[in-house]
């Protein structure tokens, strides 16, 4: 029997009709008395509903409206959620700068459009819930953000942040000041940013500064120390450590991920291509969330390596300078010693062989400075004595 015979109606896409037919049939086959028939009826109903839903146009997303009130001088203004059908994130090819700007501008327009639409019962909501992290979204977002930032192959690619920060599900978070500050704090706590990435992030965040949103003491959150440092123009430091997972297992991990994405795509992938990059991110995130400790280990390992290399170079420079100074010192000392030798032994000092000079120097090296005064004294007396 096919499902329509079981339900007792002609095939239809009207869910209401399907439901009434199901309810009607269920009266005849009540589960208490006819469990088997009810089971068949129930499966038929489910399949019919699924068919009807799939034929509806558009993809119904389980989009949850944020309803998060934004902080505007303490007065809660709710953003009512509008169900947005997901934009296709897989835009082929790399987006040129101008398009990126326009995408950002579109985003801004979207946000400003959403804000003033408040609900009918605004007067009833007297409490400010902006501090509450509903659904754990903030925590989730920050976690994913830091995991992406810990991956050196993704960290400084602007396209990655372009995709990640513009996801629909997290769009509402950025209008909250407290959250943006938290985000900036997270960014400052991670290292490895390149200047262009920092500039991009700053521009993204400053898009959420509105007229009412006057910064405290004239400071935006993007004026934090780390941002300022990175934005210093033309400060080119040679890269001591290539931006990648240094340890062998880190490199293997990346290679493994790439291989999986290649398998999924069915071809060789290139991380400069937007589509492949998005695939890589989508594969990376769940794995990273499940193995946070491992990613953290790799990141710390890279940081350690970098600081070690940096320290090594600094040490080398330091020792070079020290060696230079000591060399110079010893040169000058040699002259001074020669001078004194001359005065002591007279012109014979020159005729002393290198060996003897060296021996003399070695002998007197330790006591030279302390003996200087004494020698001066002796010489004085000697000269005086000579004069006399």
């Amino acid at each position, binding site marked *: 029997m096919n499902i329509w015979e079981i339900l007792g109606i002609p095939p239809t896409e009207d869910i209401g009709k399907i439901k009434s037919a199901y309810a*009607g049939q269920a009266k005849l086959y*009540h*589960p208490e008395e006819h469990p088997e028939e009810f*089971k068949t009826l129930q499966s038929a109903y489910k399949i019919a509903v699924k068919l009807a839903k799939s034929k509806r146009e558009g993809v*119904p997303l389980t989009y*949850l*409206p944020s309803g998060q009130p934004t902080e505007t001088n303490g007065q809660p203004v709710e953003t009512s959620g509008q169900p947005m059908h997901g934009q296709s994130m897989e835009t082929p090819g790399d987006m040129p700068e101008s398009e990126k700007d326009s995408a950002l501008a579109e985003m801004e327009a979207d946000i400003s459009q959403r804000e003033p639409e408040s*609900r009918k019962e605004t007067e009833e909501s007297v*409490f400010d819930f902006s501090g509450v992290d509903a659904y754990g979204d903030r925590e989730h977002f920050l976690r994913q953000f830091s995991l992406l930032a810990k991956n050196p192959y993704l960290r400084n690619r602007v396209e990655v942040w372009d995709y990640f920060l513009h996801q629909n599900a997290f769009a509402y978070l950025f209008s909250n000041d407290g959250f943006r500050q938290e985000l900036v704090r997270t960014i400052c706590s991670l290292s490895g940013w390149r200047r262009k990435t920092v500039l991009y992030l700053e521009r993204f965040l400053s898009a959420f500064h509105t007229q009412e949103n006057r910064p405290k003491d004239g400071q935006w959150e993007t004026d934090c120390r780390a941002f300022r440092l990175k934005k210093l123009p033309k400060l080119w430091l040679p890269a001591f450590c290539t931006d990648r997972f240094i340890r062998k297992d880190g490199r293997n991990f990346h290679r493994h991920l790439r291989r999986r994405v290649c398998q999924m795509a069915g071809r060789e992938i290139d991380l400069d291509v937007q589509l492949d990059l998005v695939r890589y991110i989508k594969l990376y995130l769940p794995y990273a969330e499940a193995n946070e400790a491992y990613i953290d280990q790799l990141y710390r390992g890279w940081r350690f390596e970098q600081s070690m290399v940096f320290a090594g170079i600094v040490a080398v420079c330091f020792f070079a300078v020290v060696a230079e100074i000591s060399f110079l010192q010893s040169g000058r000392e040699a002259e001074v010693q020669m001078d004194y030798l001359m005065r002591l032994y007279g012109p014979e000092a020159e005729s002393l062989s290198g060996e003897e000079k060296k021996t003399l120097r070695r002998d007197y090296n330790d006591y030279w400075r302390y003996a200087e005064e004494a020698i001066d004294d002796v010489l004085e007396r000697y000269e005086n004595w000579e004069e006399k």
Partner: protein
Amino acid sequence: MAVIGIDLGTTNSLAGVWRNGRIELIPNTFGEYLTPSVVSFGEDGEILVGKVAKERLITAPAVSFAEFKRNMGTSYQYFGNGKYYTAEDLSSFVLRRLREDAEAYLGEPVTEAVISVPAYFNDDKRCATKNAGKLAGLTVERLINEPSAVALKHHMGVEDAETFIIFDFGGGTLDVSLVDAFDNMVEIQAVSGDNNLGGKDFNELIAEDFYRENHLDKAMVTGEEQGIILKEAEALKWELSRQDEAERTVYIRNQEYRMRMTNQHLIHIGKELFKRMSMPIRRVINDSGMSMEEIDKLILVGGSSKMPVVSQYLKTLLDIPVVLDGSPDESIAAGVGIAAAIKERAGDVKDMILADICPFSLGTEIYDGSFSPIIERNDTLPCSRTREYVTVEDYQSEMTFPIYQGDNMVARENLLLGTMSVTELPLEPKGKVSARVTFMYDINGILDIRIVSGEQALHRVIMNKKMGLSEAELEARLEELRKMTLSSVEDENVRYLLERANRLYQECTPSVREYLAAQISRFRQILSCEVNARARREACVQLAVYLEAVERNKFDFDGFDESFFRDDREDEDEDV
């Protein structure tokens, strides 16, 4: 022979029955519908249940027990009256009292009941509930999920089709379910919740804030005082439902402390709690595959949902109307009553159908220790699913199927219901030998398992995992408990007043204690004399009013005014 429906809650329990074409809640001896789920042992070893026992939580905390619903199905034991009791035993006392009240109300013996459990209760806890019913002398064939009961009650008499979320925020648990109701069908789409989130968390929050504000160290406060502080915190919480700011005075060791709270501050310190409240909602919407447009409203049920911060938060979070249930404490009992009637196929409701779902996944463990679900969570009941498993090693001779209930990826972290093995498999290279495992789970919570492999066929029915507690043991325990009598109901009112006075004596300031002691002794005096029923009632009422005033901290004493309590009839006699 009516089937009653019982809501066995963490803080309060109720019973309801379908009679005369509608649902009727069964009042207890005080005439109230709510019976606190508290059990206390009296001096003579008698068992006190309900309001009387609740008072003794403060005065005799060592032998009084509350909130034992959480420990159902665990081996946690309560020590009282020289013996150990499990949460099942304590619940059975409460159920027994409810049964006696029902029998008194209906005028006929009651032997069968349908009891409600949180949707998230696993098999252990469900079995424990059934056992508790059995120990109370009730046959419990079916358990109903609490949110499903609420859904039934709400759809009762409603003609239109609607899809709604039920947010059951009780004393200790949160249950969220998505319900699709149309015509005579009430279909549960998805269920989620938090077993450890409830009104009590807000009480603890207020208490923590109190300790912080008054710079008190929790370790320096005795258990009894902690109990008093929690109780004051709860009272403060209820005051916050009526006004935005509230304050109470707490007396610890003859020193006065202030407990203050506003709703906004409560939100600030309770950020974590609100976040935890939102998670099950998202899970439920995602699991059901519905979009927000399809959901019509959210119904708030449960004692703690009366808090304005909770309803405001949900209003802010979701874009749908939030409806506070008319009688949040009683909805579940009403729903369970309807469910009992449906089971009975009582006249009016015989067409209603509740299509509930399996709140947990049921499955087995595969070679690498991970969980392989056979029946997925949120599958409609009754359901039956089959999966095929193959051998992983060459010449493998045995396949063991441990049966787990839960959703954890690691099989061992879930609840083990039992184990079945297929032995003497034909020795063949790996992958060639397979076994088909069929799970059937029905609305009575009975799991039917069939395994077919080649020639062999195994069959097992798991309905009461704790069948390990054999029938004989169960009967023995039943006998033991039957010997213990519940306190008689005649003087319950008097007993209650005395216990309450006792508790207030402990809690209030020394200045009020004097007067309270005088009142109590006067009351006792009246009762010990041979006075008629009317005088007794009057004395009870007087004492009750007095106690109420003391409780609300509103009693303002200038001096002990004898004339205030003078018996009016004395004056009349004088006139004559």
